[in-house]
């Protein structure tokens, strides 16, 4: 018999950590960080750039340059650590908040801003970047990722002796998403087909205003066991632990050993989106407590302490971040304004008759104004 589990969401049982909030390296029984300081420094750089991108975008929204922005503030370690585990043949299916991963995959930040400025749909090349489109329907991408992973199996890209010939899928969603039927069906399918997919839950403890307890009374990593797949909980603010755990899970998937669910325990330090007002539903003390666990600070402290980086290195990254900021601030206003004409041809592979008539009528109608203007001008 499996009894009622009354564990709270506080990390008390499984909680993989390799770097404490104070920047101290600690050991985990099972998971080790397999890389050198250069990798950690590279991660720190991605986290700093990711945060800068996010801060700039948030500011741009405040200035009316974007319609909306979902900040990733506080989730940099979860994103960069997992993103760092991705290899060439892997594919990433994001939710809508994985801005830091997007940058790592080579998505142009201005392309990302188009979506939130409303000048484009989701305007990046997901094939080239292997970073799929943002999904705004909660949880839906878990199924697409699982299907894609089933495709990798069929393509013979799983379980080969040569590890470089193998790929896997990494899919992101939030704590709230775990309640959706689609996410649970994805676990069913992934388990049934032993698909090479890693479900990466960023448990930032809030789904807009709903605390995680509304979704689940037990830690989310335990959901996995009910579907017969391994579940792991990692300190989501510890980029080392996140990378180690994600590498383990992706490797497993690539080897053909099936799916894993990772719960990265982290915190949404900002609002849900720029339209949100967290003061309505959560206490400042909670936010302050989590600020003390900042994912960037601990890495910086650690690397400075070990001497792996110095102030000059940090200044260099800051300069890079500033250049990114300039590029974004200058670029956003120059993003081309879309015209309805750009979209007629995107609904179908070829324009259907009724839509063609609608387009023709629209063009004639628009032209009538131009004619009128022209006449007025004469």
């Amino acid at each position, binding site marked *: 018999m499996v009894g009622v589990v009354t564990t709270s969401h506080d990390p008390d049982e499984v909680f993989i950590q390799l770097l404490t909030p104070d920047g101290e390296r600690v050991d985990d029984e099972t998971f080790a960080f397999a890389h050198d300081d250069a990798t950690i420094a590279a991660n720190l750089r991605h986290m700093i750039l990711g945060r800068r991108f996010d801060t700039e975008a948030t500011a741009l929204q405040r200035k009316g340059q974007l319609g*909306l922005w979902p900040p990733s503030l506080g989730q940099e370690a979860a994103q960069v650590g997992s993103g760092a585990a991705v290899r060439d043949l892997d594919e990433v299916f994001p939710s809508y908040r994985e801005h830091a991963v997007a940058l790592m995959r080579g998505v142009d930040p201005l392309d990302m801003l188009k979506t939130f400025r*409303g000048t484009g749909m989701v305007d990046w090349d997901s094939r080239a970047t292997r970073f799929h489109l943002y999904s705004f*329907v909660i949880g839906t991408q878990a199924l697409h990722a699982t299907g894609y992973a089933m495709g990798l199996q069929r393509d013979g890209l799983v379980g080969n002796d040569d590890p470089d010939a193998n790929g896997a899928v990494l899919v992101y969603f939030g704590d709230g998403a775990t*309640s959706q039927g689609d996410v649970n069906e994805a676990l069913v399918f992934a388990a049934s087909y032993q698909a090479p997919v890693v479900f990466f839950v960023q448990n930032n403890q809030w789904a807009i205003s709903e605390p995680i307890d509304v*979704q689940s009374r037990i830690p989310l990593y335990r959901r996995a066991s009910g579907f017969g797949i391994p579940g792991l909980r990692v300190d989501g603010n510890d980029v080392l632990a996140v990378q180690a755990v994600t590498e383990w899970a992706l490797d497993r998937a690539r080897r053909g050993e099936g799916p894993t669910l990772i719960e990265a325990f982290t915190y949404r330090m900002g609002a849900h989106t720029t339209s949100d007002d967290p003061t309505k*539903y959560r206490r400042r003390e909670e936010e302050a407590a989590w600020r003390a666990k900042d994912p960037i600070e601990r890495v910086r402290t650690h690397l400075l302490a070990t001497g792996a980086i110095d102030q000059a290195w940090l200044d260099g990254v800051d300069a890079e971040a500033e250049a990114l900021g300039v590029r974004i601030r200058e670029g956003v206003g120059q993003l081309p304004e879309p015209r*309805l004409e750009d979209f007629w041809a995107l*609904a179908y592979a070829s324009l259907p008759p009724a*839509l063609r008539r609608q387009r023709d009528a*629209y063009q004639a109608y628009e032209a009538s104004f131009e004619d009128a203007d022209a006449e007025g001008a004469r």
Partner: protein
Amino acid sequence: MTRSMTMAKALNAGLRRALEADPTVLLAGEDIGKLGGVFRITEHLQRDFGPERVVDSPLAESGIVGTALGLALRGYRPIVEIQFDGFVWPAFDQIVSQVSRMRFRSMGRLSAPLVIRIPYGGGIGAIEHHSESPEAYFAHTPGLVVVSPSTPLDAYWMIQQAVASDDPVIFLEPKRRYHEKGEVDLSEPPLAMDAARVVLQGTDATLLTYGPMVKTCVEAALAAQAEGRSLEVVDLRALSPLDDAAIRASVEKTGRAIVVHEAVRSGGLGAEIAARLQEECFYALEAPVLRVTAYDMPYPPSRVEKNYLPDLDRILDAVDRSLAH
């Protein structure tokens, strides 16, 4: 007693009154508690009625609607909020195969008196899935009542009428009108929710519309007036079942009809209305029933929505075309 308020406040007041009037009424949905919903329609209701009657649900729309149906079977009258139009689809099976049919399936023994509130429509500069107009899908589903208020007054009363209805109601709230003010008479409902209303009298042509487009049509009619054209504007209010008598009466008088909605044209509500009118008022029609709607493509990025959605000019253009017949 008349008060000026926004539609958002009117809905809040109507929900409050429904909660006060009937202890079996309860609210459920995502973020409707402390936050008061992303549009603040349920603001302070959890504070005042408690978390048992104003319930933050897990993030799963099928679950929200399916459990609401269970509550309805137990004798409750749940009002659930779907956060945005584009997120109703995960609940579609529950709505179409379960909620709409409980009465029929049970040979009339059971009913499913629940209300599904959906902020809908575009024009608010949003990202994908936040500007949709799903009414035709529901209107094609027997057993569902589909209504949409266009003013704070209607919002206040129709939400209460929806709660009182013994049939399940899809309650479509034109979110772009949430913050527009209107006079609300709190003493007595002006009209049942299954009736259309002539908003503006006219003789040359009828604009048939609902929800967010009512205001736009009224503006168009006023603009047309300046050019000496007399347009009648009918606010359908009930999208399914339709108030055929009111629609016919107006169109038989004017001889011309233009349906205006934000949903895509093909298979939209305009199709059904046009089909009925040509069938029932064939000889009264001086011109084909025209449709001013969104185009048959998914909702585009917000920076082009003004070109995608009907506006005053496109409505007047259609009036011209109708009158040219």
